[in-house]
């Protein structure tokens, strides 16, 4: 075991896969010499050389499109989107090719590639650096979308993602890149994609969240406990495919469900999860499913961001509301 933050854990996963599979290549804007703007790929170019870990020209469509080409030709590219807000020039390649190649060629070609992408707010950033747009990616048929909430999960999930024969959008909660440290097993281990994690057991309310929101929910759970409310927390880990079974099982037990997400509310992940609760556990529900989410607005610049963010009180407010319903 080794104490790691999420940056160390992702670096470790990349190191392990670069070490054991010569088809793995890692590239993106500033990932080589500098080791990435968040230092996630630090040291990897020195260790594996410029043919396997390298800086690309500044072009996100170029990044995703060339990764599609590499992947159909047998490599396993892991590319970095510097910030979530800059992925959109590459969106065309994601939605038009990366997610479709296997289906289009009836299985002749596939695109085993990982798009790593820091996402989310709470870091006092400039415009386009704080969004959490998992919903629009979850909506793309043929794409898998995952997001870890701990260093341990980040390592195991990224190794699984690189070994997967699908295209994986790997969303990294940059707000907690260095905020959480924990013991992470050394060497290789995997966490299956598509399985949620029940972080803590409870009886009154189920909360489903992912990424940086897990920590915020945990703070709210402590406050709720003071009022005698017992909350079960599910870390989704995978946005698509979504773990219906774990959600259903929990809601059948608690009868109440709240989703906590950072993205805009309408057409968001919360709606999808509420629908799952309705479909799978309708007769167990004691209250309408509730959402804690961003507003249907742009994430404000830092001085206004506190209005938008999901602080533990926003979560507690919904917990108290749903219990009293």
């Amino acid at each position, binding site marked *: 075991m080794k104490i790691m933050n999420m940056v160390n854990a992702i670096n470790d996963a990349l190191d392990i896969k670069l070490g054991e599979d010569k088809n793995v290549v890692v590239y993106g804007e500033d990932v080589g010499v*500098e080791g990435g703007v968040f230092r996630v790929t630090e040291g990897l170019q020195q260790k594996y050389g410029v043919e396997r870990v390298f800086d690309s020209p500044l072009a996100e469509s170029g990044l995703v499109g060339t990764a599609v080409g590499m992947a159909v030709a047998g490599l396993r590219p892991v590319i970095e989107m510097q910030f979530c807000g800059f992925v959109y020039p590459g969106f065309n390649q994601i939605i038009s090719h990366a997610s479709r190649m296997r289906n289009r060629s009836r299985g002749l070609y596939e695109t085993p590639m990982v798009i790593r992408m820091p996402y989310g707010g709470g870091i006092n950033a400039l415009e386009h650096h704080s969004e959490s747009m998992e919903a629009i990616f979850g909506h793309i048929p043929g794409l898998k979308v995952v997001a870890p909430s701990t260093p341990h999960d980040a390592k195991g999930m990224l190794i699984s993602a690189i070994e997967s024969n699908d295209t994986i959008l790997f969303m990294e909660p940059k707000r907690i890149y260095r905020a959480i440290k924990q013991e992470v097993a050394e060497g290789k281990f995997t966490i299956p994609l598509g399985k949620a994690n029940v972080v803590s057991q409870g009886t009154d309310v189920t909360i489903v969240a992912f990424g940086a929101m897990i920590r915020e929910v945990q703070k709210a759970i402590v406050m709720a406990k003071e009022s005698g409310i017992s909350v079960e927390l599910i870390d989704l880990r995978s946005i698509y495919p979504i773990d219906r079974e774990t959600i259903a099982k929990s809601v059948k037990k608690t009868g109440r469900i709240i989703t906590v997400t950072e993205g805009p509310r309408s057409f968001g992940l919360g709606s999808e999860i509420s629908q799952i609760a309705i479909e799978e556990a309708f007769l167990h529900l004691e209250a309408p499913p509730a959402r804690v989410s961003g507003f*249907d607005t742009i994430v404000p610049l830092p001085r206004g961001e506190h209005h938008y963010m999901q602080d533990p009180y926003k979560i507690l407010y919904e917990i108290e509301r749903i219990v009293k319903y």
Partner: protein
Amino acid sequence: MFNEYNPLKNTIFQIIDNDGKVINKAWMPDISDDRLIKAYKDMLFARTADLQIVSYQRQGRIYTYPPNYGQEAISGATGAIIGENDWMVPAFREMGAMLAKGVTLKELFLYYMGYEDGSKFQKAKFTLPISVPIASQLLHAVGIGYAVKYNKEHKVVFGFVGDGGTSEGDFHEAVNFAGVWKVPVIFIIQNNQYGISTPTSVQTASDSLAIKSVAYGVKGIKVDGNDFFAMYKAIQESVKVCLDGEGPVLIEAVTYRKGAHTTSDDPTKYRTREEEEAWDIKDPLKRMKGYLKSKKLWSDAEEEKIIPQFKEEIDRQFIEAENYGPYPKEDVFKYLYAEMPDDLKEQERQYERFLQWKAAKVK
């Protein structure tokens, strides 16, 4: 000029040397002494402000900021020429040109302190807000150019991008559209040698960035971006070309980002002190000052006298921005639509109810 300095020849347009001595009399622009001194003062003001902002950032009084240090001649020459009715389409490293358009330092401070209000320019006309997604703004410049031409207006559009931005598809689409539509747009590439840590040699295998104009049938020129006179002349000629209906023009301004990419960046990771020193010799203010001193238009004594006045003015505007006050919750919601949809109004009301509950809870 555009024939003589055709990018296919891969020469660089310069007028003064590193000491400020004129080495290219044929193209020396005709600028009055007063305007020259004003241009130098504006550049000095921009530099003083830039360095001061970085120190405010180090004190935790402002968020992430992208310094302009070392690139002042590009914005300075633009600022000396751009008219109040010309369009300014910035990226995010054009402080001098923004100030020349009438954007105030206070507004820039507000932006970097995390208020969108900093992009609601009170005085500057025809100036778009800072654009963060790389190169995307150049297409807007072309669209504006189309509207200018359509309305038969006598004005030009300045669109800025960095060297890294020339790798984006939007850059190529913009220059191509501009060429096809023959719009009055002056594209200025600030080639400061790095896109964050990535050197221009990793962005392109071309001999220059200016040469990209050739394939799109657009006039182009590679200019010493640390040479105020060369930048001034190149922009002046470009304006003429645009107003004659012969635009667009692509200018590659070769410069060096003496500071970090942003205050979050550490250049020691990817470049050497020797390289930085080699560029110090070509510093744009030093060179222009060399010229002005040789003509007895400026002195070190004047500079020493004026810098404290600049600092006082910068500090005054900074403190005004610091005292701007809280960010009202309405501002999160009210600018998204011409008329706010009911659902969004309800979200605002829900938030208000939450705030009331929280106020009671944490009492």
